[in-house]
Structure formats: structure tokens, C-alpha cells
């Protein structure tokens, strides 16, 4: 190991105050270090390693204390003793912080740790004012770290250490700010990432989204609102449906199945009639309780991101979209999210049960709106989709009540998809007055007073979530269209006409 690109970063561990129990753990630190550099946060490896361990690993998995004698640091850094003492003081305070105490329980992914480190140490990196004399490239090999402490004096001496010295000075100068950031770290957001997944668009883009979410005070409100309504959602199970795979118990009778699940009375038919029933697919089988054989629907969650949504409206709309998405995923449905203002933005699919949470929290729309254009684009997209995909699209719209889509555009979308809408009434307005409401399969209205009241807001959200389940699965019109609490207003009587009901088969 002679390359300074490896010995440079590794040698900085002579300044480290955290010794992990297993070499494998350090490999995560290598990944964090690379990730931070990609985000433009350049810091010595030892600092990323130490602070990362504190926030990502349980306390029993590492020891705290200098890994090399102070004299090693003093050989290259002036005032090493005082700077290391200041660093030790910071590490001790970080260890005592609530964030460090609780964060390891969150079992953060590496992407998330990188984002947290960027948030905490970004100001330190900005203060350093010096570049490392080496380009960091530590091989991802656990063997490198076996017994590395003995080699630290030699590794430390392999490169100039002004960068590390400037970093220790920056830590000393910015100690209070680092601690302020650590104390103010929003653990709920981290918890939400853990619950919903943060890997839907893994990689640098996911990190950027997550960092933006952590930096955004508005996102915290969405997180809290989501956490308020999610427990009811997490009880959702995959909806049982009749299937043919040999698992679970019998749930009913169907016309598909294998010979071992044939209803025995079928054998009572004479041979000719049995043959005819087999040919006409009339033979009955016991059906199993399990998930559907194949997906039949794809849900598009369309969220208004125009500037007029800022504030409580944005919190409600995005919180609802997150909860609805999670609920649908748990039911085994396929889900994709799209923001719109005057443009219809790129589709973000939920993958492997994970929602693109960072994206949903951090997306910032700054344009006005042009519903005619957006819904024309949506209709075209859905038309193309239907040509190559047999699944039925369901559009869930989250917006405020001043979304004046031309009626013919709603009709164009309605040709291809079922539509349900959640409308937030503007301040100072008490009535939803849109000429296309009767074209929607279901819609709910939330007024300004409800948004301003915490419990009413959560109740409204839970009511909609409960009813949307009915509206997307049952043949009957959703309960909201028949009755509902005052804050969640039912739609107009016209929306109850039979023609507006979901088609037989349960598709939305």
C-alpha cells in the first residue's frame, strides 16, 4: 500500500477517536467518504469515519479514544495536542446528543448517513479553505483495516497534513454550529425514510433529494403529518384475492385451478358433459387465498407543486400522497408519483416497495399552473401507456380547489383512466366550484379550517384514506359521496349518478 491516494486518507485515522469493533464496519466509512466527495463535501477520512460511526452504529460496536499517540499527530500538525483536545470535546458532546443516541436505532442506509454527515459537517468543509494534497481512493477491502492501528504512524507520515490541520481548526471554530445542527437534526425525517424506503432512486440523485429534504423546514411538517396518519396505513395488508397457487387456505370457488383443487362433485358429471365443461372452462375448482396472480392496475399520484400550494396545503397534499402511495404498495398495487405545476414532471416509480420519499419531500415547484397543458400531456401519456400496457391506470389528484382543468381535458383523461381527486379549498372560499367534478370517480374536499387544526386534519386524511380504499376497490360509490364529516365534504349529487360509478370488476 504505497499509493498516496490510499495512504493519505487511511493515515488520517491517526487523528481518529473512534475504533470500530470490526474491520468490516470501516468499509461503510469508505463509502460515506466517497459519497460526501461526490456531493462536494471534502473532508478528511478520519472525521467522516468518526462522526459517521457515532450516528450509524450502536455504541457497543465501537470504542472511543485516540488511536495513535499524540506525538504522531504532533510530528506534522502544529498545536496538535490542543486541536485534538478540542476535537475530543466535540466528539464527546456529539456522543451525548439525542441524535447520536437515537440515530443508530434507525438503521440508516449508507445514502442516508452520507446525507446526515453532509448536513452536520458541510459547514466545517466550507470553513477549511484548503484542499487535500491527495486524491482519495481507498480500496474497498476489509483486510486493509486489520491491525491498521500499528501502521498509523507510518501512514500518517506518508503525506502532508495541512488539510487535516485546517479541518481540526475549522472544527474548533465551528464547534457550536456543528452541535446546533446535531441537536436540531430531524430524526422524524430519518425515521420516515426508514419506514417508507429511501432507495427508490438510489445513488447521487437520491442523496441530493434526501439532503434537500433534511434542509427544508417545510419537509419536516410533511414528515410529521405523514407519521401521524401512517400508522393506520401500515395496518394495510395485501388484499386477499382468489388465486390458483398451492399455498395458504381455500377462499372460494373459481373456474381456474389445477386437478388437485377440483371440486369433487365435478366428477359426478358423465364423461361427455365433463369434457364439455372442461372445454368451455366451466369446471369449478377450489380457489386459494393469496395475492392476485398479476397486477391489473397502476396508480398515478399526481401532486400539485405550483407555488400556490405552499404552506399547509403542500403539507396536506404531499403527506396524503405519501400515505396513499404506501397504502397502495402494501395492497400490492403499482404506484408512480408525478408533480405538476405548469409542466407535468417526470414519473417517479415506487420500486421494491420503497417510495421516493426524498423526492416527494424536497421537490420544489416554482412555476404557475397550466392545467390545460398538463392534462393534455397526461392524456397523451396514458394513451401511449394503454397501447403497450394492459393495466388500468388510476389517477389520484392532490391539488387545491382552484385547479380549472378544461372539461374536455378531464374527459380525455377519463377515457383512459379512473380519476379520484382531493381538493383543498382556498383560504376565504367555502365552495368547490369546478365544472368537471361529475367526471371524477370520487373526490374529497378539505377546507382551510381543517388544515389549520391538527386533529381535524389527521381525521380528514384518515377518512379519505379509508374511503379511497372503497372507491378504488368496490363497485359501490365511495362513502364520502354519501356522507362524511363536515370538514371532508362530499361531492355534489351529480357525482353519485350510476354512470360515474367505477366499472364492474372493482377497478377504481
Amino acid at each position, binding site marked *: 500500500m504505497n499509493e498516496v491516494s490510499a495512504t493519505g486518507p487511511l493515515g488520517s485515522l491517526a487523528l481518529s477517536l473512534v475504533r470500530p469493533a470490526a474491520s468490516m464496519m470501516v468499509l461503510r466509512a469508505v463509502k460515506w467518504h466517497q459519497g460526501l466527495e461526490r456531493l462536494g463535501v471534502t473532508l478528511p477520512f478520519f472525521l467522516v469515519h468518526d462522526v459517521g460511526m457515532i450516528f450509524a452504529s450502536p455504541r457497543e460496536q465501537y470504542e472511543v479514544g485516540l488511536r495513535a499517540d499524540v506525538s504522531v499527530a504532533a510530528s506534522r500538525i502544529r498545536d496538535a495536542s490542543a486541536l485534538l483536545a478540542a476535537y475530543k470535546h466535540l466528539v464527546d458532546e456529539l456522543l451525548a446528543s439525542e441524535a447520536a443516541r437515537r440515530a443508530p436505532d434507525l438503521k440508516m442506509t449508507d445514502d442516508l448517513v452520507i446525507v446526515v454527515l453532509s448536513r452536520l459537517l458541510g459547514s466545517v468543509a466550507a470553513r477549511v479553505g484548503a484542499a487535500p494534497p491527495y486524491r482519495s481512493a481507498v480500496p474497498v477491502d476489509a483486510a486493509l483495516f486489520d491491525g491498521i492501528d500499528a501502521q498509523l504512524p507510518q501512514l500518517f507520515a506518508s503525506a502532508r497534513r495541512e488539510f487535516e490541520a485546517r479541518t481540526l481548526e475549522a472544527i474548533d471554530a465551528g464547534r*457550536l454550529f456543528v452541535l446546533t445542527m446535531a441537536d436540531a437534526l430531524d430524526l422524524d425525517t430519518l425515521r420516515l425514510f426508514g419506514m417508507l424506503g429511501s432507495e427508490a432512486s438510489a445513488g447521487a440523485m437520491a442523496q441530493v433529494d434526501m439532503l434537500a429534504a433534511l434542509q427544508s423546514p417545510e419537509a419536516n411538517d410533511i414528515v410529521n403529518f405523514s407519521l401521524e396518519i401512517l400508522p393506520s396505513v401500515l395496518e394495510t395488508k395485501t388484499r386477499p384475492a382468489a388465486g390458483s397457487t398451492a399455498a395458504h387456505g381455500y377462499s372460494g370457488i373459481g373456474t381456474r385451478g389445477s386437478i388437485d383443487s377440483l371440486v369433487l362433485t365435478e366428477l359426478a358429471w358423465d364423461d361427455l358433459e365433463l369434457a364439455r365443461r372442461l372445454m368451455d372452462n366451466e369446471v369449478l375448482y377450489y380457489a386459494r387465498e393469496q395475492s392476485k396472480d398479476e397486477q391489473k392496475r397502476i396508480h398515478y399520484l399526481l401532486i400539485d407543486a405550483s407555488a400556490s400550494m405552499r404552506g399547509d396545503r403542500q403539507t396536506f397534499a404531499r403527506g396524503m400522497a405519501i400515505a396513499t402511495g404506501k397504502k397502495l404498495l402494501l395492497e400490492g398495487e403499482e404506484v408512480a408519483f408525478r408533480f405538476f405545476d405548469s409542466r407535468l414532471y417526470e414519473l417517479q416509480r415506487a420500486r421494491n416497495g420503497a417510495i421516493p420519499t426524498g423526492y416527494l419531500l424536497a421537490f420544489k415547484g416554482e412555476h404557475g399552473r397550466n392545467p390545460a397543458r398538463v392534462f393534455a400531456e397526461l392524456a397523451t401519456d396514458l394513451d401511449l401507456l394503454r397501447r403497450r400496457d394492459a393495466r388500468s391506470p388510476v389517477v389520484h389528484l392532490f391539488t387545491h380547489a382552484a385547479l380549472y382543468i378544461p372539461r374536455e381535458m378531464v374527459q380525455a383523461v377519463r377515457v383512459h383512466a379512473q380519476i379520484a381527486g382531493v381538493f383543498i379549498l382556498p383560504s376565504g372560499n367555502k365552495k368547490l366550484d369546478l365544472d368537471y367534478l361529475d367526471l371524477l370517480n370520487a373526490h374529497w374536499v378539505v377546507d382551510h379550517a381543517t388544515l389549520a387544526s391538527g386533529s381535524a386534519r389527521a381525521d380528514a386524511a384518515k377518512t379519505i384514506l379509508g374511503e379511497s380504499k372503497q372507491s378504488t376497490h368496490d363497485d359501490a360509490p365511495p362513502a364520502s359521496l354519501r356522507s362524511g364529516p363536515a370538514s371532508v365534504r362530499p361531492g355534489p349529487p351529480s357525482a353519485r349518478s350510476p354512470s360515474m360509478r367505477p366499472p364492474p370488476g372493482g377497478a377504481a
Partner: protein
Amino acid sequence: MSAGLRPLHELREEARAAYNRGDTARAKNALWQALQQTIAREEDYVVATTDMRDLLLAMNDPRGALTLDWYAGTERSQKNLLPRVPPIDRARTLLAWADRSSDRDRAKSVYAKAADEYEAAGLVAQAAIARERGEDFLRARALWSRLSQILSSTTTDLYAAGLARFNLARTSLRTGDAAAAREAVVAAVHLLEEAADRYETIGQRERAFDCYQVLIAIGRESGEFEHVLEGYVNVNRILREDHLRYYALQSYEEAMQAAERQGEMAAAATLAREMAVYARKEGLPSVANFAMLAQARLWQAVAEAAQRRGVPPQIAENGLLASVIACGETGQYRKVGELYGLLANLPLEEARRTHYARAKERYDDAQNLPIDAAPLPPHLRHEVGFPEVWHVDLVEWEQQGSAAQAAGDIVLDPAQWSDVTRRRAMLARLSALALESIDPNEPPRRFPAQSYIALADQLALVELYTILSPLERLFTHGEASVRVAVVKALSRFLYKRTFITLRAALSDPDAAVVHEAARALEELRFPHAFDPLARIYRESQNRDVRASALRALAKIDTFEAAEMLLGVLQHDSETDRAAAVEALRRSRGMKFTDHARASFGELPDAVKVTVREILHARGVYV
């Protein structure tokens, strides 16, 4: 007065003598020359206008005479002329009388008469405005309703239709018809949002800016804060994108205040945060600190409001934590300690409260760092408010590019415009009156091209935004020489809208028009001209046009322009590179020097040599 000009009294003498001889043409010519001296002393100039008015009356030109009387005459001197001029001139005169009247009741009746005259002239929008000024909202509303119907059924001008609907909403509100007002607001918002998006799509951000300003006004009128917010956020974005940083920062402040007044503390805090980020990026640390402290205060207000509303304590906690971070970023650690104290008192779970109480102790002895925090200083502010475009732009739409009407409005507004500007507008109107027919349905009369060229030259001297519309109409003239004169005139109009006609001129079938348009481009070198200039450079197939665009861009001292020119040096054709080098050698903007120095290490060797030469020519050595 320059050596070639004859004194005014001499010209007046000549006119008087010619008139006495019965040579009215010569008399008119002498007075016309006298009036061209638009920087003459006011007393001398007024006498010349009076002479010319009397002469035109004698020559049976009451419209011209009234125009001259508008400059320095009185109600008494104009009264006798009114029966001899068409309704449109009577209406304009009456409107000016009413505007100047200090007797409110009399003013109302004069506004009503002006409105009647406008209606007689078939000018619905201007009639409605006169009714509004006379506080006759019921009849104004009927007129706006009529105009809305006309615009919805006959034009594709979404912007004008949106403005008419907004005026209908305003007047419906004033007449107590809330349902009609609501319906009109819905339609206005819909039309303006769509118009704004279309304008942005075709690169006319300045027109979209107007749409969003109207959206703010709609939100204020209707009490729907969502429209105010959408308007402000987009206005701020456009101002940022156009590098109008002081306007943008001022607009951020206004938006914050509007949100705060409405009790929308979270929206106000978000705007403060964006303002802080933008001010820091623009190198204005004291404004950034001011915005950051405002953000801290507003997030704390969010927390207090949340507690009052009885929402879950986590919402208040979020507000206080956001305030902690804002204070931390400005080094206000004592305040951070106080905020942790508030957090420790929230009804949160015990572990969290203990954590906050412990965190508070850390700041017991902490001090606030001394920082410079101040709002945008008064000398960088623009106190002129946004015009009432819902009136102004509909008037422009209704005038259909008439130079006589646009210039007439300027002459009649001494409160807003200087004497020199009004004199120039008066001359332009006198020229236009002869060329324009009163009745829009009347087939256009044809005059020699020279008459239109003279009009374009006179309009050029006015240099006001309202003159763009007449120039745009003149540009549609069939004679290339007229179009050349228009393009030459446009080079004096430093507005983004100017580029709309210039871009059309750049693809004119006549080479002389294209050549003049390329020259005009080089005069339009203001910071927010970057986008249209860059677009012209990228889209033009004509290398002379591209070179002109590069010359103009080299004189714009913004980072975007510097970045683009460095890109041209690296990637574009040899001809374009040569044009860029020449332009950069002559310009003195520091942004290019800074950017070139910062990127120097990463440039290919050949480009390094070029950049070094350019910087050497400016006396900078790398």
C-alpha cells in the same frame, strides 16, 4: 441650441409674415421647424405651440389644433374645439379635465361624459375605465362584461381576455355581486395562468411577468392568498432569472410582508429562506443576514401559531427547530439557547424535552456573533409601483398600435412625463394624425413611405414603453425602408419586448432590414437582455447577426454572459470564435475576467492562449 438651428422668434416671425401673405404652407413649415426644438425654454416653446394651434385652426385642422392645445392650453381654450373633433379626441380631452379637477362631483360628471364619448367611438375598454374613475361601477361592470364576451368569442389573446375578466371581477365586487365576481375571478386566473405559460414557452418572460403581477392583484381583490403567493413566487423567479437582483430582493420583502399580513407564517418563512439564499449568492451578506433573521423570527411565529391552534406539538417543534438553524447559521447562539428553552417547555415526550433542556445549557454562556444585517438600502429600491396593467394593457390592446392615440396619452399627462417627452410625443401625434384614419373599419389610406419614416423617427425620440406598440404596427408596413426606420428607432428602446420585433426583423426578406436589426442588437446591452440575445445567437443562421449578438453579450457584465462567451471560445465555429475574441477585447466587464481566471486551469491549451490574449488586451495577466 446648436449653430444650425434658427432662433424660435425668427421662425415665428417668418411664419407670421408668410401667413399674412396667405402662404399657409410656408407658415406651417416655419412653425414646424420651431416646434422641433424640443429642448427650448418653456415660455418660448408654449408661444410657438399657440401660434401653430391658431394656424392649424385657420387651416381647418381642429384635431391638430387640439393636440397643440393639450400641451399648454386650458379647458377654456379647448372647449371651443371640442365640437369640431371626433368623439375619441373629445373623450380624451374630457378625461384629462376630469383627472385634473379638484371638485369631485364635477369630475364624476365629466368622467361620465368622457365615457359616453368613448362608447360613441366604440372603445369599450376606455369607456369602462372612465366609468370606473367616475365611480359608476354598475355601468363599468356592464362594459367589462361586454368586452369579456367580445374577447372570449373573437380573439385568441388570452392575456387581454384575462384582464377583462379581472376587471369584471373587480367591478362585480364593488357592485356587491359576489357570485359574478367569483365566476370572473375563476376565469381570469385560468386565462392568465395559461397566457403566462405560453409566454414563457416562447421566451417572452416579461409578458409572463405581467400575468403574474395581475395574479397578485387578483389574490388581493378576491382574498384568495393562493393567487398572491403564486404571483409573487413567479415574479421573484422571473426577476432572478433576468438578473434584476434589487427588484427581486425588494419583491421578496413585499411577498414576505403580504404572507405575514395574511397570517401565512410558514409561507413567509419559506420566502425569507429563499431570499437569504439568493442574497448570499448575489454577494449581499447583510441582506442575507437580514433575511435569515427574519426567517428565524417567522419560524418562531409559526410555532406560536401552531400552539395557539392546538395542533400536535411536533409542528411547533419543527418551527422552533427551523428557527434554531436560522439563528445558528447567523451565529446568534444566545438566541439559539432561548429557543431550546422554548423547545424544552413543549408538551413533547420526556426524552425529547430532557434533550432540549440539556442542549439549552450549552448556550448559557454563548454570545451572539456580531453581524451586519439590514434590508435592501433605500437607494437600491424602486419606489414606483407596478402599473395597473389590467387597465393600461387593455387600452393598448384597444388602440391597436395607433401612434396618434399612444402619443396623445403622453401629451395629456404632465404629471408623469417631462416637458421634453411631451413635446416629442406631441410632434409624433401631429405626424400620425395625418397618416391614421379615425375609423378602424375604414380601409387604410396610403401615403409615401417617407411620411412613415418621419413618424418612426419622431416616435424614436419618445423612448417610452407605450410607444413600442405603434412601432410594432409600423413594422408591418410593406416598404422595407419603413421597416428599416422602425428597427433603427427600436435600438433606443431598452426593453425586453423590443426583441420581439427585432427577432422578426432578423429574418426579414430584405437584407437592409436584417442589417439594421443586427446593428440595433448591439445597442440593447442591458443585463436582462441576456436571454433574448443568447437565443438570437443560437438560432441565427446569419454570421453577422451572430457577431452582433456576441458584441452585445460581451458588454453585459453577468456571470451567465461570461460563461456563454467562454463556451463560444471553446466549442463554436472559427468565425464565431473570432467575433467573440474581438468583442471581448473591447469590453471591460469584470465577470468575464473573473470567470476566465477561475476556469483557466481546465481550459484546452489553444483556448488558454486565446483567453490570455483577451485578458492581456484588457491589462490583465494570467
